């Protein structure tokens, strides 16, 4: 089993270079690194590193950041870096993020959740947030299992496994990217936490996207998923070619079909097509903005 790429190979220099100027900034108001409660080698470390790089690149400040964490190992990421954070019920992250962004377009709102949170208990929110298209980035730390409850199967479990017969109890995995496209998402991408540099580049594009940006990040569970390992993802992952036109929906579907036929997993931006949207302002919230609303025009309706 390999460690994530953060401290190794050619990713190393970039990670350090990007983190250095602001490493301290992201470490304030956060759980100290030595107390992070992820298993050694957890894929989520790579997501954390990539996230810090992307936020730094986008010059997001912790005060203007609102992270909404899901339930599970992955959701703890909100406490492992600086910035405002909220954590509610299982499956709810995107709906909280939706309300927050609708109210405060001035904030950078990101949702950080697992595959169970997003695609099982929270799929009702995922589908409709794809349609609603709030300016929220979602990073799904997809490991195929419920890690925090000791390894039960999630909706993406079974990826790449040679299973001859399926059952109602143990159905085949479904494709997050296909669901996102079907539901009308305007930004659909996939990354691999074992390559944080590449992941951070995708996060940067997601943060720049005006609308809902979904990034499914393969984030291996080193304890409970012994099949979809770092090595397995390295073997099966393949960068989306530079010639792919992400603004073309047909091309996006064709790309997914092509990768599926070849038994490969696309890494990169599969679809990106911002939708024309109404401009909105921050909602009034300070007492001086709220005091003395004139409701007399409403009263006229009842005379």
């Amino acid at each position, binding site marked *: 089993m390999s460690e994530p790429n953060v401290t190794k190979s050619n990713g190393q220099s970039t990670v350090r270079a990007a983190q250095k100027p602001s490493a301290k900034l992201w470490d304030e108001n956060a759980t100290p690194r030595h107390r992070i409660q992820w298993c050694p080698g957890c894929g989520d470390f790579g997501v954390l590193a990539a996230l810090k790089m992307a936020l730094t690149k986008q010059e997001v400040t912790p005060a203007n950041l609102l992270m909404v964490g899901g339930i599970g190992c992955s959701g703890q990421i909100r406490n492992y870096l600086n910035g405002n954070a909220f954590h*509610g*019920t299982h499956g*709810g992250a995107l*709906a909280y993020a939706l309300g927050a962004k609708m*109210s405060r377009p001035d904030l950078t709102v990101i949702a950080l959740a697992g595959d169970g949170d997003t695609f099982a208990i929270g799929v*009702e929110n995922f589908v409709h947030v794809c349609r609603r298209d709030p300016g929220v980035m979602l990073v799904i730390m997809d490991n195929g299992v419920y890690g925090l409850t000791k390894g039960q199967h999630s909706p993406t479990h079974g990826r790449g496994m040679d299973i001859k017969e399926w059952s109602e109890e143990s159905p085949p995995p479904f494709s997050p990217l296909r669901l996102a496209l079907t539901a009308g998402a305007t930004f659909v991408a996939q990354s691999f936490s074992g390559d944080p540099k590449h992941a951070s580049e995708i996060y940067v594009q997601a943060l720049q996207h005006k609308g809902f940006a979904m990034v499914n990040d393969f984030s291996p569970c080193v304890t409970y998923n012994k099949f979809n390992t770092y090595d397995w993802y390295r073997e099966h992952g393949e960068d989306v070619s530079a010639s792919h036109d992400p603004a073309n929906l047909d091309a996006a579907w064709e790309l997914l079909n092509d990768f599926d036929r070849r038994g490969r997993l696309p890494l990169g931006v599969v679809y990106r097509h911002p939708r024309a949207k109404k401009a909105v302002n921050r909602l009034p919230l300070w007492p001086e903005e*709220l005091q003395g609303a004139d409701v007399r025009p409403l*009263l006229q309706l*009842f*005379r």
Partner: protein
Amino acid sequence: MITNHLKLLVGGVQLRDGVVTVTDVLGRILTRAGLYVLAMERGYASTIYGAHQYDPMVIAEQPPVSWGDPALDILVALDYDSNPDASQQPNRDTVLRHGSHLKDGGVLVYDSSTGEIPTEALERRGIKVFPLPARNIARDELKLDVVKNMVAVGALFRLLEFDRDVTLLRKLVEERFMRKGQKVVDTNLQAARRGREVVETVLKARGWTGTDYHLEPRPVTEPRLLISGNEALSIGAIQGGCRYYAGYPITPASAILEFLEEHLPKYGGRAMQGQNERESIRAALGAAVAGVRAMVGTSGPGLSLKVEEFGVSGMAEVPIVIVDTQRAGPSTGMPTKSEQADLSLVVFGGHGEIPRIVLAPATQEECYTMMIDAHNIADKYQCPVFFLTDLNLSEGRKVVPEAVFTQTAVRVDRGTLVREEDLRRDGAYKRFALTPSGISPRLVPGTLGGIFKVTGSEHDERGFVSTDPATRKAMMEKRARKMETYLREDAKPPQVFGTPDRKPVLVGWGSTRPVLLDAQQRLRALKIEAAVVHFTHLWPFPTDVAKAVLGRASVIIAVEQNFSGQFADVIQSQSLLPVRRIVKYNGLPIYASDVVGGVEQILQDGITHVRVGTEAPAPVRVSEGD
């Protein structure tokens, strides 16, 4: 001759007959004429077309104490043909259902387009019957089916000898229909004229000089509104600074969503129809985390789906106002019938223990004023604030002086919201700082100098997850302490009407206050002196105050619209005083007559529970074989 004092009921087939159009036109015009209208019962079915619908209305010169009892002075039956719901009864459905409630000497107007119906039994009771072929007049003479309602309105005004010069009706019709053209206005007025003529023909043929009822305009000294609870609380929310609302369509809360979708954007706010009940409350909590005053509205089934988020609000200390327009449960229950059976859910619902505040306005006026308080209280105590209405209060309309909305002093108080300058002064910011009041400083994201970590998991003062026993204990106690502060600073004591000493005391909450006051008057006429104690601030229960009042009673009788007496259980468990109950759960409103009967039974027989409204109303006797 009875002037400006009657109860009228308009019935017909839902959607087809336009029952609500008639009562709406009546209500608006009578309000403008300086009369008081109380239309608190809404009789409709959870279908769009076909079922029986009825809309009772009390009309009076002074604000009516309550909607009284089932007895009717005037019955208007709009059905002209068989109700799909009761096909064997062409154009008799409304009369069969409500005729027995007509008082002797009352008035019946029915649509005789498909033939006259047997009414001898009613006429023997001195009831004056007016057959009115409204549908035929509209369809055959005026070539516009929908104006049959206006035929009925014209007939009603004639027999009440009201608006003889048609100024009031003409003004309203012009306001409503001028945009559709002068012809539509003229047709509507022609319809009303035809209704009047039919009544005159009947009067002449029967040799009657008129009916016993008469309406007369009163001088209008102040602007008044005819408004429902849903509308009043929506305006209260806007006035109180709520700028984010989310709701999933559900009867009877949908009207709040519709109103705020239309009007909240004018005040810089947003209202969103959720894709489900959970998305609604979660999005609202997200808005609240982001610093905006947020509210959701729903009814029983939707509230059940939101329960998990009560805990998030309580634990993560995110303020939210949750409106529950109660309807008859459980499960889908009776979606269009009123009940007060969600109290246990809002007081006790959810796993674990959280601080929570439950408010229940009694009237449309309080829907407005208490909604402003609800948002201030939610911000101050940073916990869920439940706002319990019920179907009758939500959808029922009454005349309210406009001054209630324009003269109430409104203060938007966001509690301990901190600003940048506070953070510079106070140093390290702690979202969940342990304080004597239990209330911690709250931060809006984006405020420089402060960061919050907020979670529904147990946490330390900075919001980081913790299961340390000492931290847990301190945090549980901190959150609980907020409710002690609330009881000390903001809980309003029950209102006491009369002196409770050694007397029966009627206890109620929410929308039943007018009924209890009406019953109190009726009991006095029977030489029974009773006091009324009414609660609007239900939870945390003000035990000390309540005990001091209720402890003086000879017998405590809770009157509630549910099966078990949910508030009675709260009083009993919190104050250790025995509470008897008068309960009604058949879907009909509690009438003052129900309360009077229940009190008599309890005082005479010493029973503990009276379950009223069990016998079905007897159908009117008509000769069969037509």
